[in-house]
């Protein structure tokens, strides 16, 4: 295998693929990056077993100035070390050639490296997805869905299914739900095409986070393919594979309350400010708890950590409907949830001090919901 390529173009693809490569793995070859030169172009592959990213630099891409002299494949490891070398090379272009016994020569201008590679045949093969059923998804909207739901994903492997985001596709809508059993995020978006098929899958939260980093905002849309245990997100040049979590996602549809006793509308950013200030104190105390007191015409956030001190703040609001109420919650959950709304007016729907409460945009048609469980005090 021998090729010459423009460094900046190569590094861009390399950075994408590196997102999938972890330095901590039990399969040593996965710390490396696989390079494969074929008739179509140069393929870069990285994987940590969960996520695999494959990106191709096409021979026809003029900006890449790619010249393939001979085809073949090699694994270079660790990937970080290889990318550092390429970053520091002196010339605009560099040449990579595989010599005997997987020795790989990297030359650029007057600089020459020879590093030890591994046989690409030992690299795990990527899943084969032959599904023809693709969903077309808008990039920016889907990235928003990820941002809004992934916060509620559980970080504990004790209930593996909750470490993912549940996607249900039904007729022409896609519903994303995540919960760590203390809070829940749900977002529904319309789909352009109706496949006439139903899907219910759980994608690891971490995979979605990485996907969100790799999706280019410049693109309009991308495709999603689903198989029994893998999902593939495909843009023009890049394939992003993720495993799916096995098992059944709990039924969350009945968790979202229909009615509420108290409704408060306020500005998300203002409320976020107040909760963040109160959390400064609660983080120092033993219990991370903040109290919300709703009266006829006041909304108050307060915290009391006997070891540290007290905080109290009147929160500006737009309207209050319903009964006075007092409830306590974990300010971190509230902060995460408020962050997903951006600068918008939201409505808090409260039922009782011990029942979960929801946050929705005031312009709501129930497409986006954040649900948080309160903390029982005393």
């Amino acid at each position: 295998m021998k090729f010459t390529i423009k460094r900046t173009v190569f590094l861009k693809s390399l950075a994408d693929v590196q997102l999938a490569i972890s330095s901590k793995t039990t399969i040593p070859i996965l710390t490396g990056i696989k390079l494969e030169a074929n008739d179509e172009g140069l393929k870069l592959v990285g994987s940590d077993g969960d996520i695999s990213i494959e990106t191709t630099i096409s021979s026809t891409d003029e900006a890449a100035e790619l010249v393939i002299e001979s085809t073949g494949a090699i694994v270079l490891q660790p990937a970080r070390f290889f990318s550092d070398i390429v970053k520091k090379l002196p010339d605009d272009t560099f040449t990579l050639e595989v010599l005997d016994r997987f020795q790989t020569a990297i030359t650029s201008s007057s600089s020459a490296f020879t590093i030890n590679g591994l046989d690409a045949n030992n690299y795990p093969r990527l899943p084969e997805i032959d599904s023809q059923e693709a969903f077309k998804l808008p990039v920016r909207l889907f990235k928003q869905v990820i941002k809004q739901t992934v916060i509620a994903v559980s970080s504990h492997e004790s209930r593996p299914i909750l470490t993912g985001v549940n996607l249900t596709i039904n007729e022409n809508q896609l519903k994303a739900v995540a919960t760590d059993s203390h809070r829940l995020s749900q977002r529904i978006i319309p789909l352009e095409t109706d496949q006439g098929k139903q899907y219910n899958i759980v994608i690891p939260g971490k995979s979605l986070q990485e996907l969100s980093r790799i999706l280019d905002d410049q693109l309009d849309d991308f495709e999603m393919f689903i198989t029994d245990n893998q999902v593939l997100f495909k843009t023009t040049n890049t394939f992003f594979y993720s495993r799916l979590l096995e098992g059944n996602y709990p039924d969350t549809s009945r968790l979202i309350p229909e009615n509420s006793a108290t409704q408060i509308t306020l500005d998300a950013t203002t409320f976020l400010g107040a909760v963040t200030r109160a959390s400064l104190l609660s983080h120092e105390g033993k219990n991370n708890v903040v109290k919300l007191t709703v009266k006829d015409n006041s909304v108050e956030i307060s915290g009391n950590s006997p070891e540290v001190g007290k905080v109290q703040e009147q929160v500006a609001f737009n309207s209050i409907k319903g009964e006075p109420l007092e409830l306590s919650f974990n300010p971190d959950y509230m902060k995460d949830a408020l962050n997903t709304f951006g600068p918008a007016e939201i409505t808090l729907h409260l039922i009782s001090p011990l029942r979960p409460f929801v946050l929705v945009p005031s312009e709501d048609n129930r497409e986006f919901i954040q649900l948080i469980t309160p903390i029982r005090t005393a």
Partner: protein
Amino acid sequence: MRISILSPTLANQIAAGEVIERPASVVKELVENAIDAKSTHITVIVEEAGLNKIEVRDNGEGIPSAEVARAFERHATSKIHSDEDLFRIRSLGFRGEALPSIASVSHMTIETAVEGSNGKKMVLIGGEVVEDISSSSRKGTRVVVENIFFNTPARLKYLKTLQTELAHITDIVNRLALAHPTISFHLIHDGNHLIKTPGNGETRQAIAGIYGVDAGKKMRTIQNTNLNFSVAGFVSLPELTRASKRYITLIVNGRYINNFLLRNAVVKGYGSKLMVGRYPVAVVKIDMDPLLLDVNVHPTKQEIRISDEKELARLVEEAVSKAISPTRRIPNALENITSGQSQHNKNTYHQENIRFIENNELTDQNKLNYFKENRKDELDTTVDESKASILVNKNNEEDHQKQDTSLSEQGELTKRSEKIHDNENTLAIVDRLMENKAKKTDGEKPFPRLDYIGQMHGTYLIAQNEEGLFFIDQHAAQERIKYEYYRSTIAEEGTVLQELLTPIVLDYPVNDALVIKEYKVTLEEAGIFLEDFGQNSFLMRAHPSWFKHGQEEDTVKEMIDFLLEKQELSLAKFKEATAIMMSCKRSIKANHYLSDLEARALLEELKQTKNPYNCPHGRPVIVHFSTIDMEKMFKRIQDPH
């Protein structure tokens, strides 16, 4: 100033200050006398931790009635006769100090008789004889010490609580019992039987009598000799440990001693198999020509001088390591659970949980993973290879299995039998089995082949084989793999030197400087080149390149301090610490999902390591539920109660 000779009583009281520190010292001296008198049964009865009364009864030779009075004179002893004897001491006592010292600070009654003649009873208060009559002629000696320290109130005040004093007494009786398995010891405190050893010459049974039957079963024999020394005894499996080195009993020519170097040698013999801060239970008996030994260092004789101590330490270390390495060290999961159950703090704050309505559909078992399927072939080949290697050992293993089961049956039996007497047979069987086992396996029992089942909580891997169920801590496992890797790569690091612009000046006191000069070559091997710079100073112009930047001076000083203290270089230790740190940092953590392929790769790699059983910090990597354990848990086999 007038100079006068002290009265014998006063002289004895002064000697008592050294010999008789606390009630336990009295027990030690009296029991040692009983041992020297060739007794086979020694009974120690104490009241109020010995403050009220200490009674030692034996069936030894006794003292002829005409000579009893003489025993209370200072420097009167039956144990040595000429100055040559002092260098060939086989007995425990020899100074002729104990009896008069004890008598001088207490009320003492002694009753003794030799075989075939009338006995004698003598009562002394503060060393003065107040009664002297003949008595019955039971062979042996009975000494009763009451009101100890009655005339030295300062010493009495200095005593600790009753528990502490009793602990000291039990400790000394334990040690003596371990040193003399042919003697049956019996310790009774306020009517409670605390210790009883069978006295049939089996050290393992003495250990069982003292540390419990379970401990007795977990002991392995050690054995090693060279021209000067012979080492024998018992050390515990790495899974049986204590928090202090006190459970290492060293016995030299039948005498319980304290020796830092030899205790450390026992610990060193375990290598990295012990957890940090944990020490084994061990009884190490060393026999040597008394000429190589000077016991006349301290009146209590616990400190001794041994010629060629280092040689002996090496011998001990080797013996321990030989006994420990051939055992397979996967601890039994049930025994590894400590009884201390964690108590959750009751919090008045309670985070509400979402109550899920669980889906009822069953998971579709037929869903096949492309990712898995594609790689299946590769996996199979590796499994086949390991199968082949297992087959070779199969016959051997089957034998072991039979023994293992019979062993645990024996274990059950011993647990139920309360009396030590009953244990004698079973323990003897255990002993024989151990021996058989040792003969059959030359090397270490291979790490078992494991079939991966799944992962729990992103932290533990579950695997099975025909011997039962295994749990593996994934972080610990990879830590071990990485540790062995880094240790070997770090060890390869050459002594490349970094030149310094301004040399480091090291000042040491004269005696240290001399030692440093003596070990100059050793230091140079480690890449530390010191130039003489004035009388007690050295210059270092370059340092090994692996020194951390900014810590050069500290590192070299630390290494030299280690050299001064231990007379050996800490290079290996330094590198080991670095390897442990790197391995921990670069390993997958808990709460981390592993795919099937990754988990299998991890188990396969673990198998290749030299010590797959412990992480570098000494915690277990793998625990085992035997098939029998599982069957018992589900009451498939009934406990025969």
